[in-house]
C-alpha cells in the first residue's frame, strides 16, 4: 500500500472520539496542511450511529472520506469498540463506492472493473504497480467469484488486497460509506499507488485428511464425499479430536475447526463454517467451489504455529525493513474468537518481529490477498492481512 503521503508525520493515523469538535479540529488542521488530503476511516460497529457526525465533519471541512464499519478497531495490541480510526492520505487517491453489486444486469466484477479501469489507465506507474484495495460488505455471498471475474478483467494491472466489513453478528448493516452515503451489499475500492505490498497469512497447517466438496452452492456446502456435509464434519471431528459435535454445540466448536481449501502449491484457503442449516448443509464465510478439495483444519494455537514469523518475514521480504513504521492490520474476527486472548499475543509478536511502532486496523470478516507478489487474488478467512503504513 502506498504510504508515501503518510510519511510526513506521526499524526497521519489518529484514533478519535466521535465528537464534532474533536473531528473538526483535527480535520481542519489536516485540511490546512494538506489541501488535497483525504481520509480513510474505520468505525467500530458500536459507533455506527455516530457515522453521520464524521460525515458531516468531513463535508464541513471539505475533505474526501471513504471508510467502513467493522466489529472492532485494532490499535496496537488491543481491540477497541469506541471512537474512529482515521488514516490520512496527504493526497487523496481514487475511491469508488459501488452499491448493489448483485443487482442489475451487469455482473459485480464488471461493475467494479468499469469503475476502476479509467483510474487504472490514468494512474502513474512511476511509483510501481497500484494496489486495488477492496472493502466488501461481508454479507456478499460471492466475493471469491467476484475476485475470479476481476482477475479476468484486470489481470496483473494491479495488486489485489482487501477485507470484508460488517457486523460480527452477520446481521445486514450498511457498512461502507463516503462523506454523503452509507451503503450495504456493495464495495469500497481504493486505487492506491505502489510500491508497498500487502501480505496475508493464516498459519494453518495442512492436515492429511482430504475430502471433496461434492455439492456446493456459493457459500453453502451440501455434501462432502457424496454424504451430507454436517455428517462428515461431525464424524471427522469425532475421529480426529474425540469431540462429539451436535447441532447444539456446533457454534461453539466450528470456529476452532474450519475447512481448508487445498491448492496444489500447498496453500490453504480457510473457510470457517458459521451456520448449520436444518438440512445438514453448512454455511461458510466465503465461497466453496464445487468439487473443491477440502481439508478439515484445527485452528492452531499461537505457540504451535509459525504464522506470525512467516508474516513478518514476508512483509520484510516484500517491503524491506519496517522498523519504526506502522502497519495497517486487519485481524480476522473468527481467528480472534478461536484464539481469544492469545490473539493479543499474536499481535504483540507481530509488532516485535516486524519492529513496527504501531499496528492499526480492525477485526475483519474475511481477507483478500495473494500468495505472493502479483499472484492470483484469493478470498481467505482466519487470516491477518498487513500493509506497511506510517506511524500513529
Amino acid at each position: 500500500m502506498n504510504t508515501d503521503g503518510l510519511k510526513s508525520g506521526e499524526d497521519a493515523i489518529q484514533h478519535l472520539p466521535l465528537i464534532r469538535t474533536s473531528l473538526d479540529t483535527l480535520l481542519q488542521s489536516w485540511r490546512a496542511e494538506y489541501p488535497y488530503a483525504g481520509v480513510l476511516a474505520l468505525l467500530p460497529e458500536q459507533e455506527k450511529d455516530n457515522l453521520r457526525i464524521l460525515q458531516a465533519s468531513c463535508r464541513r471541512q471539505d475533505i474526501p472520506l471513504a471508510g467502513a464499519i467493522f466489529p472492532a478497531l485494532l490499535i496496537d495490541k488491543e481491540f477497541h469498540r469506541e471512537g474512529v480510526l482515521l488514516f490520512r492520505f496527504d493526497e487523496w487517491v481514487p475511491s469508488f463506492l459501488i452499491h448493489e453489486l448483485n443487482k442489475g444486469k451487469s455482473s459485480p466484477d464488471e461493475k467494479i472493473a468499469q469503475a476502476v479501469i479509467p483510474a487504472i489507465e490514468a494512474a502513474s506507474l512511476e511509483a510501481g504497480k497500484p494496489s486495488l484495495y477492496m472493502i466488501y460488505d461481508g454479507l456478499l455471498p460471492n466475493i471469491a467469484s467476484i475476485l475470479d471475474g476481476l482477475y479476468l478483467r484486470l489481470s496483473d494491472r494491479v495488486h489485489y488486497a482487501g477485507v470484508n466489513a460488517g457486523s460480527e453478528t452477520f446481521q445486514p448493516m450498511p457498512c461502507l460509506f463516503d462523506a454523503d452515503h452509507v451503503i450495504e451489499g456493495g464495495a469500497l475500492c481504493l486505487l492506491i499507488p505502489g510500491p508497498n505490498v500487502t501480505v496475508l497469512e493464516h498459519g494453518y497447517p495442512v492436515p492429511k485428511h482430504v475430502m471433496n466438496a461434492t455439492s456446493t452452492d456459493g457459500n453453502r456446502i451440501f455434501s462432502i464425499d457424496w454424504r451430507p456435509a454436517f455428517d462428515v464434519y461431525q464424524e471427522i471431528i469425532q475421529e480426529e479430536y474425540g469431540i462429539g459435535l451436535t447441532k447444539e454445540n456446533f457454534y461453539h466448536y466450528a470456529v476452532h475447526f474450519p475447512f481448508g481449501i487445498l491448492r496444489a502449491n500447498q496453500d490453504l484457503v480457510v473457510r470457517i463454517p458459521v451456520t448449520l442449516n436444518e438440512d445438514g448443509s453448512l454455511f461458510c464465510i466465503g465461497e466453496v467451489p464445487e468439487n473443491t478439495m477440502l481439508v478439515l483444519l484445527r485452528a492452531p494455537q499461537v505457540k504451535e504455529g509459525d504464522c506470525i514469523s512467516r508474516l513478518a518475514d514476508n512483509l520484510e521480504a516484500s517491503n524491506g525493513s519496517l522498523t519504526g513504521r506502522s502497519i495497517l492490520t486487519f485481524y480476522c474476527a473468527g481467528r480472534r474468537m478461536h484464539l481469544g486472548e492469545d490473539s493479543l499475543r499474536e499481535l504483540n509478536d507481530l509488532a516485535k518481529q516486524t519492529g513496527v511502532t504501531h499496528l492499526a486496523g480492525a477485526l475483519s470478516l474475511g481477507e483478500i490477498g495473494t500468495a505472493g507478489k502479483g499472484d492470483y487474488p484469493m478470498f481467505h478467512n482466519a487470516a491477518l492481512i498487513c500493509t506497511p503504513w506510517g506511524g500513529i
Partner: protein
Amino acid sequence: MEREHILSILYDLTLTIGGEIHLDDLLRKVLQRFLYHTAFPMGLVLLDHKYVNGVIQARLTSVIGDHLLELRRGEQLELPTALTRNPIELLNDSTLFAEINNRAKYRYCLKLPIDETGVILLLSPRMPASKLPLTQIFQPVLANLSRAILLCRNSERLTRTLETDRDQARAELANALERSERERMLLRSLNDTIPDLVWLKDPAGTYLTCNKAFEGLYGTTEAKLVGKTDYDFVEKELADFSRENDQAALKSDGPSVNEEWLTFTCNGYHGLFETIKTPLKKEDGSILGVLGIARDITLRKEAEDRIKQLAYYDSLTNLPNRRLLMDRLGHALLASLRSRNYGALLILDLDRFKILNDTRGHGTGDQLLKEVALRLVDTVRQEDTVARLGGDEFVILLENLDSNKDFAARHAELVAEKIRKELNKSYFLSPQEHEHHSTTSIGITLFSDQRNTAEALLKQADVALYQAKDSGRNTVRFYNASMQSAIDERMAMETALRQALRNNEFTLFYQSQVDSNGWITGAEALIRWPSPDRSMVLPDSFIPIAEETRLILPLGLWVLERACDQLKTWQSDPRTKQLTLAVNISALQFHQHDFADQIKDILHRYEINPAFLKLELTESALLEDIDSAIERLSRIKALGIGLALDDFGTGFSSLSYLKRLPLDQIKIDRTFVRDIAEDANDAAIVQAVISMCHHLGLNVIAEGVENQEQKAFLEKNGCRAFQGYLFGRPMPTAEWENQYLIATDKT
C-alpha cells in the same frame, strides 16, 4: 494423501472440461483452474499450430493474468517448437518464451501441450512451491481437453450452422410474419375504411370477426362479438331470419343478396340494407363460414325514389307527369283492346288561370293547382290516373268503363261533371286571402278498339277541351271529328293575328255616345280587322284568341295609342275638342304592373287633355284582385282620365266592391238592354243599376240601344247617356267625323 490430492485436482479439472460446450469458456475456466491449483499467476492457451520454417505459428486464444498479453489475444505468435511440443515440462529458460514474456517478468513456465492441437503455458516470476509432480499428473487431463476442444469446435460449428439456419428461418418467419401482419393490417384497414358492415361467421353462426362499421352500428366491439351468435344480440325472430339466410348461403355456390330493413337498438337507427352473404371455403373445399357484407342503401333508395319521382311525377302536385301518363295510357289502350271495354281520357284546364297567376303571383297559382290536384284525386276511383301535363292542364285516365260506348260515354260525362262541380267550389288558398272561385273546362275522348295512339288520344281530348272553352267555358265537351277542324281554324287565326299585328292591318271604328237630347258627346273606339283575305274580321273572333295568346297586350296598346292620336286631332279642332273618347282596356292589359305608367307616357307623348279620355274596363278585370285594382285605378284617375265599368251585370257583380272603385261611369250591358221592353227581369235589373248609380253618384250609360222604345225606358228610369245603332253604327274615322260634323251643324 498425495494420491487423493492428485485425484481430487484431476477430478476438478475433468469436471470443468466436461462442463463446457463453448471453446472460449472452456479454455478460460480450465486455465483458471490450472492457475488455481498450481498457483501460477499467469496462463495462456495457444491453438492451431502450424510448423513454418522450424518455428510454430499458433494463435493466442486465451490469456489470464497478463494485461498486455490479453491485448494480443487472437494474434498469431511464432514460438520455438520446444515450447509447444510434448512432453509436459517445467522450463526455466526464458529465451524460449521471450515472445510472450513482457518486461521479462516470467522466469518459469509449465508447458502443457494439448496433443497436436495447441499448448497451455503457465508462467510465473518464481517457481510456485508444490509437492505435486506437476509434469506428470496432467497428461490425462490434457488428452481429455484436446477432445473437448474438438467437441467444442464441432459443437460451435454445428451451433453456428444451426444458428445461421435458425436466424435465416427466423428472418424468413419474421419477414413472413411482417408481410402477413402488413397484409392483415392492410386488409383490416380496408375493412375498417369501407362504410359497409363486414363480418364473418363460422358454419354454426358464431361470429369470427367484424369491421369497425359493424361495431359502430351494433354498438359493440369485435372482442365482445367474437364467439357469440345473433341470438346474443337481436330478437329471436330476427336471429332466426339471419340464421336461415346464413344456412341458405352456406348451401349456395355463390353470393346471395337480400334487402332487409334493420333497426339497431343501440342507436335507434333504422335503415334498408342490401346484404350479400357468400360461403367461404378452405382450400380443401370444406366450409370456413359465411362472409357477410351489408350496405346501407337507405339513402340510395331514397335517391332512386326521388329520381323516379322527378322522372315520372309532377313535383308540384305529386301527380303522374306526362311521361308516366303516356306510359299508363299506352297500357290502358292495350288493356282496352283486350277487354273490349271503353276507357276515357279527360283533359281539363282552369278557366282564367293565367289571370290568377298574373295578378296574385305564381305562389297563389301553385297553391290552387295543388288544391285542384287533391280534389281530382279524391273525385276519381283509386284505379284511375290523374296526371298533370303542365301549367293548369290536368288529365284523367278512366279505364274499363263499359263495353257499350254510350254507357261508357255517360259514365265519363258523369265523372267529368263531378269533377267540374268539385273544382267550381270555393278555394281558400291562404288564411289571409279571401275565397277564390274558379271554373274548369273539360274535354273528353273515348277509346276502345280504335287503333289510336296515346298521342292522338291526347290531342283529341285537347280538341274537345277547346271546344268546351269555345262554348263559354265551365263546361264539358266530347271530342268529335268536327272539333278538330275548328281547332285548326283557331290555330290559323292566331297565326294571322300575329301577322296582322306585324303588318299593322288593324284599324279603329268609332261609335257615337249621345246624351238624352241625342247630341253626340263622344265616341267609343272599337277595333276592326279588315283582313285582306278575310274581309272584315269581327272582334269576337279574334279578341279571345288575342287574350289567350297574350297578343291582346300589344294590340291593346296599339288601340290606346291610336285613340289618343285621334283625340289629339279632335282636341286641336274647335269643332271636336269637346268630344270624349272611350277606349276598351282588357283585363290582361290592366293587370300589367306598369299600366298606369304606360298611360302616363302616352298622355305625355300625345299631349292631350286627359279629361276627354275614358277607359272602359270589364267587371272581371277589376274584381280579380279588388285591392290592387283600386290602387291602380286611383293612379290612373289621378292622371285626370275618366273610368267606366263596361258590361256591368255580366260577371260576379258586387255592389260593395263597386262602391270602393273610383269610377265615373257604369255601362249597362247590351244583353240587359236588348230585352228591356219584354223581359221584366232585365227591366228590373236595369232600373236597379241606374238607381244604384245615382245613389253612388255615378254616371250611367246604356249600350246596345237600338230603338226608341229602349231609349224611352232608359230615359224614363234616369239614364241620360246612350250608345247603340239607334245613334249610329261603328264606322271609320272619317265617316264618323263627317257624321258628327253634320249633326253638329244641324244643332
